[in-house]
């Protein structure tokens, strides 16, 4: 879930985020109930990003309930915090692209509840699960950067958004690296 307080606290976003917000607010028309929202493809893409990060958060929190204190639990707690921060940044961007949208309504807790306790070989090891989640997020950001030219995003906006997405991609790469390192230490 995207907390309302985190999205209200837009001052917590990075300077680059604020630049993106300013660009969109100055160049995009407001959506109305009579017309489809502007940049719908971009909004939906960012919504998928929010979902993936929130999935990492809810599954990580569920794993933490079952893990004893120690390096693995500490790492997963960090992964959860990092995913929550990325989720909130993406939510802030969505509301900037289309101010008529409330990001915390796009991905509601009830949507994630069925997936908090997925079972099966891929999910038995918390680190395996976090690794898969991190690799998926990395792939998502990389794909989205490649796709941006096909989306209805102006050149200036696209450059800023590309830089921001690349930053998220590198953050997820660092998380994946931390997980693999911890796997090697066990």
């Amino acid at each position, binding site marked *: 879930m995207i907390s309302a307080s985190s999205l209200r606290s837009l001052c917590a976003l990075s300077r680059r985020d604020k630049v993106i917000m300013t660009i969109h607010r100055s160049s995009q028309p407001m959506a109305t109930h009579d017309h489809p929202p502007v940049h*719908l493809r971009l909004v*939906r893409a960012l919504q998928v990003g929010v979902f993936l990060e929130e999935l990492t958060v809810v599954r990580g929190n569920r794993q933490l309930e079952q893990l004893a204190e120690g390096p693995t639990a500490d790492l997963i707690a960090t992964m959860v915090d990092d995913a929550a921060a990325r989720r909130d940044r993406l939510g802030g961007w969505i509301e900037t692209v289309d101010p008529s949208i409330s990001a915390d309504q796009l991905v509601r807790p009830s949507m994630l509840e069925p997936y908090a306790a997925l079972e099966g070989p891929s999910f038995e090891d918390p680190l395996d699960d976090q690794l898969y*989640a991190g690799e998926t997020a990395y792939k998502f950001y990389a794909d989205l950067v490649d796709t941006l030219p096909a*989306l209805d995003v102006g050149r200036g906006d696209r450059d800023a958004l590309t830089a921001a997405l690349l930053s998220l991609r590198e953050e997820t790469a660092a998380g994946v690296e931390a997980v693999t390192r911890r796997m090697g230490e066990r």
Partner: protein
Amino acid sequence: MTAVTRYLRAIYAISRREGAPVATGAIADALEVTPASVSEMLPKLAEAGLIQHEKYTGVTLTDPGITAAEDALETYCIIERFVGGVLSLEDVVGEAQQLDGVIHRGVADRLDMLVDRRPECPDCFDPARDRCQYLADD
């Protein structure tokens, strides 16, 4: 969605339904484009090794073409089921089309764990409605 993907999906679906080779007119009808547009695209698909095109008989997908078409259709089906079943968006086809080409296979595989896809996928794709034929029933 790229034009190549649209063509591959249509050719695949028609081939499964009516057999190969597929007439260019059938492709034009399925995609609601002019035969001239189809004639322009087919050499590009042939050059990429995705189809074999005989001028008076029609189009047949190659093995790489079949693989690419199945991959595109499965990814699209995952997206449709994700936007409808997980994100609870009402216009499943319209919303899936927005994400088609944005969500690639690697990410779709993750989302696939969250949706219920039919075992016969992608053969249940209905090109006329641009959706899995079972989607409304599931």
